[in-house]
């Protein structure tokens, strides 16, 4: 487990590009006015990999902001668990989590999103969204949003869904001559688009785009 402490007003951008062992396990404390942005990419090509991501974050100062953006394509027999724990302990905090996964082959994915708003953490704004696409009949995704909201004057929302790729869109593209692999790639690039645009670093974005294409080939 890696420790990180954001002092008052500090801005920090953490990019996790590989989900190996404890490099992807973090305990982070945020003081007042600090802004934490995490990008998580589960795009490892090792088909036998098992991995566990833990993002345990506590806002201890007011007006802190936490953003967690993640995407992943799990392939082969991979088993990956992503666990986020975001805790608003004081008033006026903000958090947003957006995580999207595509699961192929016989891979197993799991997302557990714990969001806690303490009784006196009024005016918190907390959002959590998890969207998943299963690309094969044997792929599975377990999603478990866990919201514990103890303050009454807050804005909280969450959404979780797991579906299949849009077959009618796939056929429409094939009817125009686009091959299945490329059509899927276009659809999944579109699926991940809103996560990628939060990155704001063209060089990293390009690298991620390439890895997405590799994972889908």
């Amino acid at each position, binding site marked *: 487990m890696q420790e990180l402490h954001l002092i008052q007003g500090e801005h920090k951008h953490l990019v996790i590009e590989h989900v190996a062992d404890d490099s992807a396990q973090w305990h982070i404390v945020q003081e007042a006015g600090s802004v934490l942005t995490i990008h998580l990419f589960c795009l490892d090509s090792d088909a036998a990999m098992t991995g566990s991501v833990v993002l345990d974050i506590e806002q201890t100062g007011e007006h802190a902001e936490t953003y967690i953006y993640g995407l992943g394509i799990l392939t082969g027999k991979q088993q990956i668990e992503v666990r986020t724990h975001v805790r608003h302990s004081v008033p006026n905090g903000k958090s947003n989590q957006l995580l999207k996964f595509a699961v192929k082959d016989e891979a197993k994915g799991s997302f557990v999103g714990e969001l806690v708003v303490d009784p006196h953490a009024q005016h918190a704004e907390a959002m959590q969204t998890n969207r998943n696409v299963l690309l094969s009949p044997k792929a599975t995704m377990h999603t478990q949003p866990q919201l514990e909201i103890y303050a009454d004057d807050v804005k909280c929302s969450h959404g979780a869904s797991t579906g299949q790729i*849009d077959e*009618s*869109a796939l*056929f*429409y*593209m*094939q*009817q*125009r*001559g*686009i*091959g*299945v692999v*490329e059509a899927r790639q*276009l*659809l999944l*690039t*579109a*699926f991940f*688009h809103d996560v990628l645009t939060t990155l704001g670093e063209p060089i990293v974005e390009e690298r991620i785009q390439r890895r997405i294409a590799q994972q889908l080939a």
Partner: protein
Amino acid sequence: MHASIAGKEILKGINLQIGAGETHAIMGPNGAGKSTLSAVLTGNPAYTVTEGEVIFRGKDLLQMSPEVRAREGLFLSFQYPVEIPGVSMTNFMRTAVNAKREHQGLQPLSAGEFLKLMRAKRALVELDNKLASRSVNEGFSGGEKKRNEIFQMAMLEPCLSILDETDSGLDIDALRIVAEGVNKLHTADNATIVITHYQRLLDYIVPDYVHILADGQIVRTGGKELALELEQTGYAGLAEHPNTSANMVGTAQ
């Protein structure tokens, strides 16, 4: 050819021959199987062909994947075009055009060449530049979607185009513009199947043959005057004058 969906037979022996340069209209009551025929020809995996064969320019069409059928020159203007959020029209069309070029052993178009082609084909159906820069069909009006189908047809220059109720949803001016676009794309080497419920479209796109499809079979074939007759009598009047055998459809080449 016989075809079924979910174990239910929809096409019950279709026999049809389409020659180069010809335009065939297919009319028929709701649920007759017109869109099923389009879906089966283009390789929609929801349908199963249970009997018969389809030969497309000398090749066994049913053996080909949907994308190969398209690259070989088969095009469907969908009755209900699909929205693809997040995939831009430009990216979609570039991928489609270059996939076809690769199939033909041609180099992909350069960015400049591609944009020039887009501009020229957009003009043909007067497709708004704003639409061409959005996601595929996303938020397009019903009429805009149909116009976008014919724009794609213009981009891909198919040998056989199936227009499945392309007229539905188009306003009067749009119908004329889109129909004129289709006519401009018509050559002695390609062919068109026009599926429609209304004579009006056939005033613009004049068919060589009109077929009536009812309950999974072609029950009557005639010239363009058959559509006019239908306008008078409706499908109810049809059964009383079965003057053409269902098997004598199209022309031999």
